[in-house]
C-alpha cells in the first residue's frame, strides 16, 4: 500500500463501510453486491487482454464473447434479480459498454411495457432464450430527438393482414441504435403508422432483420455497422434500410394503440406511452451519471494523494497535489456532485418504478411529471458529469491522457448520454414546457 494513501485512510473521521451501506441501500445489499462481484473477479473466464491494446473489431468480438459468457454464467449461478444482474454486469464490463446491452435495457423493457399478453407469450420466451436478439431502432440518419419527424413508414395492408415497412428516403435510414449492425436479429422499429389512408403517428413494431439460425439479413433489409465512433468500440451501432418489408399485423406492439384486422385504428390513452422506454432509460441515466462521475473522482482523488509535485514552501519536499487549493477546488465539488447525483439517481429510479406501477393500473396522472423530471435530470446530470470527468482527467496531468488512467474511456463511453435518448437542450426545453404548463 502506498504510504500516503494509507495515512489518508487512517486519518478519516468516519467509518467508510457505513457510508458504503448507505450508498448501496443497506448492509445486506453491500454484502450481496460484493458476493456477486467476487464471482466475476475469481472467474478465469473473465481474465482477458487489456482492451486498450485491441483493434475495434477485436474489441467488438471480445465484448460479444463476454456478453455470451455473462448470460451463461448468470443462468448457472441463478442470478435473476435485476439489481443482482446489474452488479454482475458492472463488474464484468467495467467502464465498457455491453455488446448486447440494448437487448436488456431497451428491447426487453419495450416488450414488457408495450406487448399485449398474447404478444408477451410469444416474444418473451424467444428473447429470454436469445433465439431473438433484439435492439431498438428509433433514430434515423436525418432525425433524432424530434421523433414526430421520423420518416419510416408502416402501412397496413388488410388484404394480407400485414404491415409494409419502408425507409422512403436516405435520411429515414435507421442510424445508431446499438447492436443493430451485426449483433441483433430483431429490432423494435419506430415507424409512422398508416392505415385506411391516414397517418396515426409513431408506433412500435417488432421487425425481424436477420434469419434466426443463419443470421443472414432478410429480404428487403439492408443492415450493417456505421463505423468507428468517439468511443463505444464494443458496440456495433448500425444502419437499417427497410425496402417493402412485410410483417404480420401481430408484430405491432398493441398493449395501448391497436390496428384491427379491418384496418380500424384504436388510439392509446396517452401518446407518450410509445416512448415509455426512453423515459425508462432517461430515468436510469441519472444514476449512471453518478456512477461515471464517482469513478472519475475515485481515480483523480486517489492519484492526487499519491502524486507529489512542485513545492509549497521552498526547500520542503514536494507536497501531495491534493494539498493545493486549486486541486481541491477542481475535485471536491465534483466529489460532492457524485454523491448528490447518486441520491438523485436512487430517487429517480424509485419514482420511475412507482409511477409506472400506477400507469399499469391505469393511472396516468403523474406521467407528465415523470416525463419532465426524467428529461431535465437526465440533461442536467449528464452535462455536469461529462464536463466533470474531463476536469478529473486534466487534474491528473499528463497521465490522465493515457488510457491506463481509464479516464479517457470513462469519458468517451459516458458523453454520448448527452445526445442519446434525447439531446440535452431539447430535454431541457421539454422540462420548461412542463414548468410553464404547471
Amino acid at each position, binding site marked *: *500500500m*502506498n504510504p500516503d*494513501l494509507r495515512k*489518508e485512510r487512517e*486519518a*478519516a*473521521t*468516519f467509518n*467508510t463501510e457505513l*457510508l*458504503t451501506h448507505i*450508498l448501496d441501500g443497506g448492509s445486506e445489499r*453491500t454484502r450481496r453486491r460484493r458476493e456477486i*462481484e467476487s464471482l466475476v*473477479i475469481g472467474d478465469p473466464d473473465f481474465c482477458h487482454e*487489456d482492451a486498450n*491494446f485491441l483493434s475495434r473489431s477485436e474489441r467488438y468480438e471480445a465484448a460479444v464473447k463476454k456478453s455470451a459468457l455473462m448470460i451463461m454464467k448468470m443462468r448457472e449461478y441463478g442470478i435473476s434479480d435485476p439489481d443482482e444482474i446489474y452488479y454482475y454486469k458492472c*463488474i464484468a464490463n*467495467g*467502464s465498457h459498454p455491453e455488446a448486447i446491452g440494448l437487448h436488456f435495457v431497451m428491447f426487453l423493457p419495450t416488450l414488457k411495457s408495450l406487448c399485449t399478453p398474447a404478444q408477451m407469450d410469444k416474444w418473451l420466451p424467444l428473447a429470454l432464450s436469445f433465439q431473438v436478439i433484439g435492439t431498438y431502432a428509433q433514430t434515423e440518419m436525418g432525425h433524432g430527438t424530434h421523433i414526430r419527424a421520423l420518416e419510416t413508414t408502416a402501412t397496413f395492408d388488410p388484404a394480407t393482414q400485414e404491415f409494409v415497412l419502408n425507409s422512403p428516403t436516405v435520411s429515414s435510414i435507421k442510424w445508431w441504435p446499438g447492436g443493430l449492425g451485426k449483433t441483433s436479429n430483431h429490432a423494435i422499429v419506430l415507424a409512422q403508422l398508416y392505415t385506411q389512408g391516414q397517418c396515426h403517428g409513431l408506433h412500435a413494431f417488432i421487425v425481424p432483420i436477420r434469419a434466426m439460425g443463419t443470421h443472414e439479413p432478410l429480404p428487403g433489409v439492408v443492415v450493417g455497422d456505421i463505423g468507428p465512433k468517439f468511443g463505444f468500440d464494443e458496440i456495433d451501432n448500425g444502419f437499417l434500410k427497410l425496402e417493402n418489408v412485410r410483417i404480420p399485423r401481430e408484430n405491432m406492439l398493441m398493449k395501448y394503440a391497436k390496428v384491427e384486422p379491418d384496418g380500424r385504428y384504436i388510439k392509446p390513452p396517452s401518446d407518450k406511452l410509445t416512448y415509455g422506454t426512453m423515459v425508462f432509460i432517461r430515468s436510469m441515466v441519472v444514476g449512471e451519471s453518478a456512477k461515471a462521475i*464517482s*469513478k472519475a*473522482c*475515485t*481515480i*483523480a482523488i*486517489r492519484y492526487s494523494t*499519491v*502524486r507529489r509535485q512542485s513545492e509549497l514552501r521552498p526547500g520542503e519536499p514536494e507536497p501531495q497535489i*491534493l*494539498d493545493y*487549493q486549486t486541486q481541491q*477546488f477542481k*475535485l*471536491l465539488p465534483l466529489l*460532492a456532485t457524485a*454523491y*448528490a447525483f447518486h*441520491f*438523485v439517481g436512487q*430517487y429517480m429510479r424509485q419514482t420511475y418504478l412507482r409511477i409506472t406501477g400506477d400507469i399499469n393500473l391505469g393511472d396516468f396522472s403523474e406521467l407528465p*411529471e415523470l416525463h419532465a*423530471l426524467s428529461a431535465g*435530470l437526465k440533461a*442536467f446530470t449528464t452535462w455536469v458529469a461529462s464536463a466533470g470527468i474531463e476536469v478529473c482527467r486534466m487534474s*491528473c496531468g499528463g497521465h490522465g491522457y493515457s488510457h*491506463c*488512467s*481509464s*479516464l479517457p*474511456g470513462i469519458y468517451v463511453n459516458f458523453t454520448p448520454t448527452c445526445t442519446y435518448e434525447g439531446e440535452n437542450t431539447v430535454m*431541457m*426545453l421539454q*422540462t*420548461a*414546457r412542463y*414548468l*410553464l*404548463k*404547471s
Partner: protein
Amino acid sequence: YTQASAGQKVSGMVSYLNEMSQQRLQPQQVSARSTSVNLKDLSSLVEAYKIRASKLVELAAKSLQTELQLMKTKEDAWNHCSIDLVRASDAHCHFVIVKLFCSKLAEVEDTAVHSALYSLAHLYALHGVYQNTGDFLQAGLLTVPQLTQVTQQLKELLSQIRPNSVALVDAFDYRDEMLNSVLGRYDGNVYDNMFEWARKSPLNQTEVHNSFYKYLKPLQSKL
C-alpha cells in the same frame, strides 16, 4: 406556472410554484422580508435554490408573454425565449438535486457519516451559488458584499472535506477490476504498474518496429 399563477394547486416537484402565487396574493412589507441567503445554513441554501428556480420560471414565462405580444406565432415566441426556458429548467433541476441531497441527510443516523455528508451537501449547494451568482443576485437572494463570503465559505469547506476525501471515494467501493485504472488503484502503487502497463503496448512486441525497415531506412539511404 400557468396553473399556479391562476391560483390552482400544483403538486410534485413543482409544488414550490404554489408559493410563488401565494406571495403575489399576500404582499408583505419590504422591511419584513428577509430573502438574503444564510451561506452557512444548508436549509437556507435549499430555500434560496427554490426561490431562484421560481424566479427563473417566472422570468421565462414573462419573456414568453412579451414575445407573444410582439405578434409572433407561439412557436416563434417559444424559440425566441428558449435560452430563458433552458435556464429555468436548469434552475429547477438544480433545486431538485440540492433538495434531494439534503433530504437524504435526515436518513443518516451515524453522526460521523452524517457530518461528512453534511459538508458535502453544503459544498454542493454553495458551489452552485458560486457558479451561478448572477441568478442569485438577480433574484435578490445574494448581495454583492456576500460574494466574498461565498468564496470564503467555499474555501473553509474544501479544507474541512480534504482529510476525508480518500475515505469518501473509497466508500463508493469500486474494485480495481471495475475501475481498471492504474492511477486509481486502491493500493496506490501507480508508477510500477504504469511502467508494466506501457510495456504491454503492441508497439513493444519487437525491439525494432517494421516501419523502420519499410520507410525510415530507405529514406535514410536516399538522403
